[in-house]
């Protein structure tokens, strides 16, 4: 048969590779910066755009979507054309994808520190950027499927299955979780409220981990690991089983982020059991990866690339065992809201994503530049210092998480909390924060060494933009659909494959969401819960802008140790007007759901100005600008009407008088502050924030009759 000539575009791989390295450095540097703030809070320099709350999303977004994201695209744009024996569908789309994605990252890096955020974790970007993400993602999809359609290889390799599942699911997740109503150019409210918003968000959040940090990386593993090891994949059957099981089960597990919350109990249990059932499908990837190295283990000892990959796959196995264990109620009761979860995700991020990326880069860069790696010694150094960094990071965070959680739960023989002052449990773990920062710095040092090594490698090689290839055209003969080779048949049918994977990933989400949205008994209403006043609503938006929910939860679990410390546990009906929900996922500071009325207004005033004046030793940053910034009331009217569109029962025409009510309430608060010696003016942002904080949780305070049965 005649061979067709075509070429592979290496230029786009180079671009994405460069972006991976640059954003990786940025993301990790930001991580170290905020890790240091936790024991040197003055590092925020009293500047709004450097505070922990605003910068933490920058770190997570940079690492997930910029570092890992670009690495995914680098790997896909290298492996997909080679697996399809075809050049990419459209070079223009490739470039549009590249520049669009970088622009989105830059937009995130600017808008997040400025306080434009939806507050939903890993989906913080506001609606115009959400739309841009959708456009770029669809461009990527067209480019990918176009390439698959014009492939010369009859069957799609397992790596491509994972790429397809990634694309399909991320599309669904992003669209469903980002449905929001704009208030202004960079402010919106999600259509979901409270418990429903929480369910959608963690369905998204969990599957961002599943389908952005896991499935595409499994795809990369299936290409680059056998390439680097020069060994056949251990078991084709295992690939099939673990692929379908993984994408089907993963989507159900989101509610394990909401155990002991106000989410309906049945949904929580589904989260738990599907997480447990996820162990084997996850481990399928690890086993297939490690066993592919059978007969190559002598080389693992020598070759830094294989070493990185082995540790990455092992870290994947550890994290995917730990995850299900954390989904068990009794373990989650300890680990949730603590640094244990931080340790868990960093095993995944530093170990699995980071190390696999490094392994791929060390393999890929010399090939793109047609030379050998500049220094194997430096690569080995990177491997060991990176591993050491992970060990420092993880062990300190496990220690800190368990220590703090046990302190939160400890009662004295008299039945009182042993550590009633939350701050005491924070000060106890400061040394662990320091060790964590050291671990992160070691890891980053390794990356810097890698960058030098790769730079030197590229320097001595010569880059070739296009790589020529040839292959026979795809045979057009029909493959019989016969029993025993059904999957083989599906591998030759991209369209059917997309539909099948879409159906498989939709099931879990539908089963969990539809009843939570439609069946009223899942969220019992509470008569005393009323919408926020205009001033409180404005205050809530400031709370969101400053990302207080990065460190403070608003969710009291039904444990004696929590109700003693914070007050009555959270009820589903309390959150019905919360667009978005603000439950948070980490308690660096105490829970705030029942903060209302706990302290006088002036306490909050002084505490925001300088937390250490009210709580000596506090690691909370200062927020002095809240005392001087004027509250922007020009959007009050729009905010009220948007909220009413979303179902919050403000009376008709209330938006016209909302600012009058706002002024009245703020004058009262200002008067009280002045009486107590604070030089407060009624038109400042602090007044709105205090109004919101004093409202928190008061709707049902002392009302035990509203407890849920």
């Amino acid at each position: 048969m005649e061979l067709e000539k075509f070429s592979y575009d290496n230029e786009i791989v180079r671009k994405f590779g460069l972006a991976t390295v640059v954003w990786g450095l940025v993301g990790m540097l930001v991580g170290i910066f905020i890790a240091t703030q936790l024991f040197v809070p003055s590092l925020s320099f009293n500047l709004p755009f450097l505070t922990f709350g605003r910068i933490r999303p920058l770190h997570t977004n940079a690492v997930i979507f910029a570092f890992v994201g670009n690495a995914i695209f680098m790997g896909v744009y290298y492996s997909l054309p080679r697996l399809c024996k075809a050049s990419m569908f459209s070079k223009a789309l490739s470039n549009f994808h590249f520049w669009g994605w970088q622009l989105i990252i830059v937009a995130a890096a600017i808008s997040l520190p400025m306080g434009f955020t939806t507050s939903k974790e890993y989906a913080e970007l506001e609606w115009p950027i959400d739309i841009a993400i959708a456009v770029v993602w669809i461009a990527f999809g067209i480019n990918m499927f176009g390439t698959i359609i014009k492939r010369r290889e009859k069957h799609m390799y397992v790596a491509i299955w994972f790429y397809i599942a990634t694309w399909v699911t991320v599309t669904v997740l992003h669209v469903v979780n980002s449905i929001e109503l704009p208030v202004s150019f960079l402010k919106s409210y999600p259509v979901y409220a409270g418990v429903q918003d929480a369910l959608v968000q963690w369905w998204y959040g969990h599957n961002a981990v599943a389908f952005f940090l896991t499935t595409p990386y499994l795809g990369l593993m299936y290409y680059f690991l056998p390439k680097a090891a020069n060994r056949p994949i251990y078991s084709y059957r295992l690939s099939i089983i673990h692929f379908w099981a993984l994408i089907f089960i993963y989507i159900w597990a989101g509610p394990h982020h909401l155990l002991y919350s106000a989410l309906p109990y049945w949904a929580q249990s589904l989260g738990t059991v599907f997480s447990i059932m996820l162990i084997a499908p996850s481990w399928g990837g690890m086993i297939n990866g490690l066993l592919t190295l059978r007969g190559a283990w002598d080389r693992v000892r020598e070759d830094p690339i294989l070493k990185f990959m082995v540790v990455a796959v092992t870290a994947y196995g550890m994290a995917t065992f730990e995850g299900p264990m954390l989904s068990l109620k009794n373990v989650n009761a300890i680990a949730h809201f603590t640094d244990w979860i931080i340790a868990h995700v960093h095993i995944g991020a530093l170990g699995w994503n980071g190390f696999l990326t490094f392994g791929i880069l060390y393999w890929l860069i010399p090939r793109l530049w047609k030379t050998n790696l500049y220094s194997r010694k430096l690569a080995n150094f990177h491997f060991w210092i990176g591993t050491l960094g992970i060990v420092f990071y993880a062990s300190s965070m496990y220690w800190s998480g368990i220590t703090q959680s046990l302190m939160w739960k400890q009662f004295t023989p008299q039945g009182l909390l042993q550590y009633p002052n939350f701050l005491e449990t924070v000060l106890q773990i400061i040394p662990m924060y320091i060790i964590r920062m050291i671990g992160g710095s070691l890891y980053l040092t390794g990356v810097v060494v890698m960058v030098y090594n790769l730079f030197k490698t590229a320097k001595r090689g010569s880059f070739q933009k296009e790589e020529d290839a040839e292959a026979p055209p795809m045979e057009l003969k029909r493959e019989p659909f016969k029993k025993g080779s059904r999957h083989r048949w599906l591998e030759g049918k991209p369209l059917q494959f997309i539909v099948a994977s879409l159906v498989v990933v939709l099931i879990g989400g539908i089963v969990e969401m539809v009843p939570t949205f439609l069946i009223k008994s899942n969220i019992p209403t509470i008569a005393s819960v009323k919408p926020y006043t205009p001033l409180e609503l404005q205050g809530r938006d400031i709370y969101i802008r400053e990302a207080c929910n990065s460190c403070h939860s608003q969710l009291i679990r039904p444990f004696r140790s929590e109700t003693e410390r914070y007050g009555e546990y959270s009820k589903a009906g309390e959150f019905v007007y919360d667009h978005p929900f603000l439950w948070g996922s980490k308690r660096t500071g105490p829970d705030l759901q029942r903060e209302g009325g706990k302290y006088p207004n002036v306490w909050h005033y002084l505490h925001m100005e300088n937390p250490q004046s009210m709580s000596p030793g506090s690691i909370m940053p200062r927020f002095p600008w809240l005392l001087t910034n004027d509250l922007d009331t020009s959007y009050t009217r729009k905010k009220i009407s948007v909220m009413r569109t979303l179902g919050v029962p403000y009376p008709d025409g209330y938006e016209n008088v909302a600012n009058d009510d706002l002024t009245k309430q703020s004058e009262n608060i200002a008067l009280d502050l002045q009486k107590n010696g604070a030089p407060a003016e009624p038109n400042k942002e602090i007044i709105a924030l205090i109004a919101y904080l004093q409202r928190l949780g008061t709707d049902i305070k002392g009302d035990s009759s509203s407890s849920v049965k």
Partner: protein
Amino acid sequence: MKLKFNSTKISFLVLFVLSFFSQVFAQSETGFPPNYYDIIALLLLFIVILVFTGLIYFEEITGKSTSKGKPSLFSRLKKSLSSSVPVEQEEEILLDHDYDGIKELDNRIPPWYNYLFYVTIVFGIVYMLYYHVFSSDKSMYDEYKEEMHTAQIQKEELEKTGTFINAENVKLLTSPADLSSGKSIFEANCVACHRKDAGGLVGPNLTDDYWIHGGGIKNIFHTISEGVPQKGMISWKTQLNPKQIQEVASYVISLHGTNPENPKPPQGTIWKEDEKNNE
């Protein structure tokens, strides 16, 4: 590197692991948070699984079969659990797949892997049945009620033995030891609002003759213990034990008339110790 296993070594290994678990489960009865031991047990389980799976594949990793002649118990176990085709014979199961040079073997899915999957599925079904079908009334809120009930019983028992001081029976303390203990409690908890010298800041001056909620040890004990939330004084009874409240209240009384600089203006009414106490 070669390891040889025989049944004796295996039994020792199993015994060793089991001894760990028996320790863990024995300790969990001592009344400390049981979760702590769950975690240790889980970690151990994790390590055991890792070691076990590692062992199963150890010989593949070295690429050579270690034992000749009669297969040992371990190698038979390994064989039945992994059922993989040895590296030397993998040509037999090499599929005709070739993707950019990547080939695929048609090894059986390891039986132990299937067992693991089945066990987790069974766990899931049993879990849902247990919590949502057979004991549908036992929700997390029932767990909470039980926890609170147990705590209440413990508290009542302590109250019976007179361990608790309350606003009715509290006595003023005057010994230097009690007052210095009261002072440190004051400095740890109260100074943010009342100032170090008790001259008042957010909260009122505590050194003058005026009291908003009544002076004297009983009233002050009550104010500290229950708080006055609408005025911003928080309730301290969940944070300080009754003895500590007694100490800090006594310390506050001992500050009477110390005339700090820049005191907050008087708030409340004048309190005269004797006449009110005699009422």
